[in-house]
């Protein structure tokens, strides 16, 4: 006879729990505990407040970290480097407007390069964070010096240091040139590294040396059939001539103001007063003719660069031209402060005028909105730094209509 009793589950299995009433009680209590825990947890979660993510790059000093990683230096350096990449552009812990938190960031990168002094990417990235992102060129240079010392055969730390000095700290000095020369010596240095030296020469006012440098680059590129670099060198050469012209004109305008006691309103005034005498200057058109001639005669340019340059120098005086855009000559503009004058191109003066007029017109419109009338004079607007007329003629303002123009260009 078969038993009608339900079959018991195998002992130890999950279902055997329900063979006895105590098992049911336990299971129900268990479900209750789980539900209670989840509910309570949900209450906690509801109380959470959203916080902005703050990046903390604070580490102990490099010598301590070096010991803590127990010889796993390279992989630790990699992990810290990856962490810094992830944190880049974030909100840093203890960030203050004075930028003191960058000392902690310097220490962070210092730790990486202590763990692996040959980690070139870390130097490049550290320079980017401290130099390019935060303008702490002092820290960036200090860090790159460590990179140079440990990797003096690699071009990167030398080049980065030169770059940050020239374009960041605006110090195109001998130290920057030294960095470039060290970078050039590296086997891994690309061809374009040396061109930074011409930029340094140009920015430090040694225009003739810069032009010779660009001319040599141009000649080498032409001889090697590198049209791209030849084009770049030619453009840079023309830009350097322009910068030189601007510098001569600016120096003359400054000298005029100093000696005459008042600033000139145009470059013609400066030239007529004899402040722009004839001086030896490279003529771009003549240079191009000479280049073509030497190319045709010798078949090569690079050995004759100095000869070509010297035969292209002519005595030039008066208002020097804008060689890249002859239709956009150099002019003087009146600056907003100290009655200074600056040499710019004509188109730049127009743009500055439009910009200044926009500022005035906007202030007049706001005044009208607030007072339902136009200001009786421009002084009534009480602007902290009233924009001056770049044409040096003074603004022409009509209180009745609120229209403001410059007498030199009423169409603007």
């Amino acid at each position, binding site marked *: 006879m078969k038993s009608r009793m339900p079959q018991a589950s195998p002992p130890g299995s999950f279902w055997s729990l329900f063979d006895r009433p105590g098992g049911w009680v336990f299971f129900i209590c268990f479900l209750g505990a789980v539900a209670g825990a989840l509910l309570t947890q949900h209450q906690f979660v509801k109380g959470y407040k959203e916080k902005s993510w703050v990046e903390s790059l604070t580490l102990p000093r490099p010598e301590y970290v070096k*010991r803590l990683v127990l010889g796993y230096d390279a992989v630790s350096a*990699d992990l810290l480097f990856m962490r810094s990449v992830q944190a880049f552009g974030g909100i840093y812990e203890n960030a203050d407007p004075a930028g003191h938190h960058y000392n902690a960031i310097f220490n962070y990168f210092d730790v990486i390069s202590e763990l692996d002094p*040959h980690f070139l990417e870390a130097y490049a990235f550290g320079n980017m964070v401290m130099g390019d992102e935060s303008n702490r060129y002092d820290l960036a240079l200090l860090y790159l010096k460590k990179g140079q010392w440990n990797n003096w055969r690699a071009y990167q730390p030398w080049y980065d240091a030169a770059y940050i000095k020239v374009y960041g700290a605006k110090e195109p000095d001998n130290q920057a040139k030294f960095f470039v020369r060290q970078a050039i010596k590296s086997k891994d240095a690309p061809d374009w590294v040396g061109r930074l030296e011409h930029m340094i020469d140009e920015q430090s006012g040694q225009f003739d040396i810069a032009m010779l440098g660009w001319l040599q680059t141009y000649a080498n590129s032409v001889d090697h059939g590198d049209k791209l670099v030849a084009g770049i060198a030619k453009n840079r050469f023309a830009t350097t001539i322009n910068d030189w012209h601007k510098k001569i004109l600016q120096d003359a305008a400054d000298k005029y103001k100093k000696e005459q006691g008042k600033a000139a309103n145009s470059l013609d005034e400066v030239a007529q007063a004899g402040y722009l005498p004839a001086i030896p200057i490279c003529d771009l058109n003549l240079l191009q003719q000479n280049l073509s001639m030497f190319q045709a005669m010798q078949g090569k340019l690079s050995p004759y660069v100095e000869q070509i340059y010297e035969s292209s120098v002519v005595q030039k005086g008066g208002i020097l031209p804008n060689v890249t855009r002859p239709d956009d000559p150099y002019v003087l503009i009146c600056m907003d402060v100290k009655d200074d004058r600056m040499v710019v191109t004509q188109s730049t003066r127009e743009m500055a005028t439009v910009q200044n007029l926009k500022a005035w017109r906007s202030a007049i419109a706001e005044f009208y909105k607030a007072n339902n009338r136009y200001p009786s004079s421009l002084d009534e607007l009480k602007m902290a730094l009233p924009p001056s007329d770049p044409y040096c003629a003074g603004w022409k303002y009509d209180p009745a209509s609120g229209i403001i123009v410059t007498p030199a260009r009423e169409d603007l």
Partner: protein
Amino acid sequence: MSVAADSQNMHDSGYQMSQRRRAPVFSVIPSISLNTFREAVRNRILYIILIFALLLMASSGIVRDLTIAAHDRVVRDLGLAAINFFGLAVAILVGINLVYNELDKKSIYTIVSKPVSRWQFLLGKYFGLLLTIYVNILIMGVFFLGVINYQDRVNEDKLAEVLWHQNASGQYEQVQHPTLTYTKYVATSIVASAGQGIANLFGAMTTPRTQYINGVIFATMLELAIITAFAILYSSFSTPILSAIFTIMTFIAGRLNQDIWAYAMELEKKGLRGTMAGNIKYYLSLGASHVVPNLGQYRESANQLNQAGYHGVQWVEMISRPGGISLPAGILPYTIFYTAAILGLSVLIFRSRNFK
């Protein structure tokens, strides 16, 4: 015949008997080693460690995407650190139980009742464990080199070359069966990468990404020979937990050996040796720096080789850089002497140990 002569004869005959009973050294030690190896490979911990290490290396492809630069370097460093770390884990976790298990399970009685000396037993255990670790390292090494080679073979550029081709009019079009072509290419790449990985271990078919990796692995193997000797030493007189703690402490002290010496020098430089306590500290740290294994030099060698490989330069050039540490010469003889000394100490302790 005098009593002394009788005694001498008895001693000699006993000695000769024992010599006859003893099996040849060169067959006993390998037998115990192979048995230890077989026993170790049955240990599940070994497989867990191995799988974890292989997973970590395989995931290096994901990790390399987390950085904007130094991709190859990240893969390389992560893999080499994993080989070192997990090799160390095997040495500690398997090594600490080796001798203890024999004592705990009383199986030592069967071994010592056979014509096997205690020193043979201990050396057999050591070489068996070392074989286990080295086999593990070689598996990890081949896998790691295979992963690097695979990344070289299967990347976007290579796949584009395989899956697309230029037709007669110069336009690009996809191959006829892209899925099949892809599968075949990946499958052959896996096999070829593994084969190349084995060749790389012997310094053949290296690429700039795999250059000198075999050298770094070799340095790791030498370092682990010393750690394993310490694991055996501690295992010969203490419990597994204590052995683990002692071995880890020895590892830490070994890696910081130069700092222990630097501490002694600092005490002297700052004039802190005037007191007795200062003197004790000085001589203790100076003594410790001479006794503790200099594991730092293995890391230095590995780092130098790794750097040379990473930058694709000869290591002679690397070490001539200012700030570069001169490559420690003679790490191989050092390893042999130091390991022999530690094993000798283990034998001395083990032979006087009472198994009751």
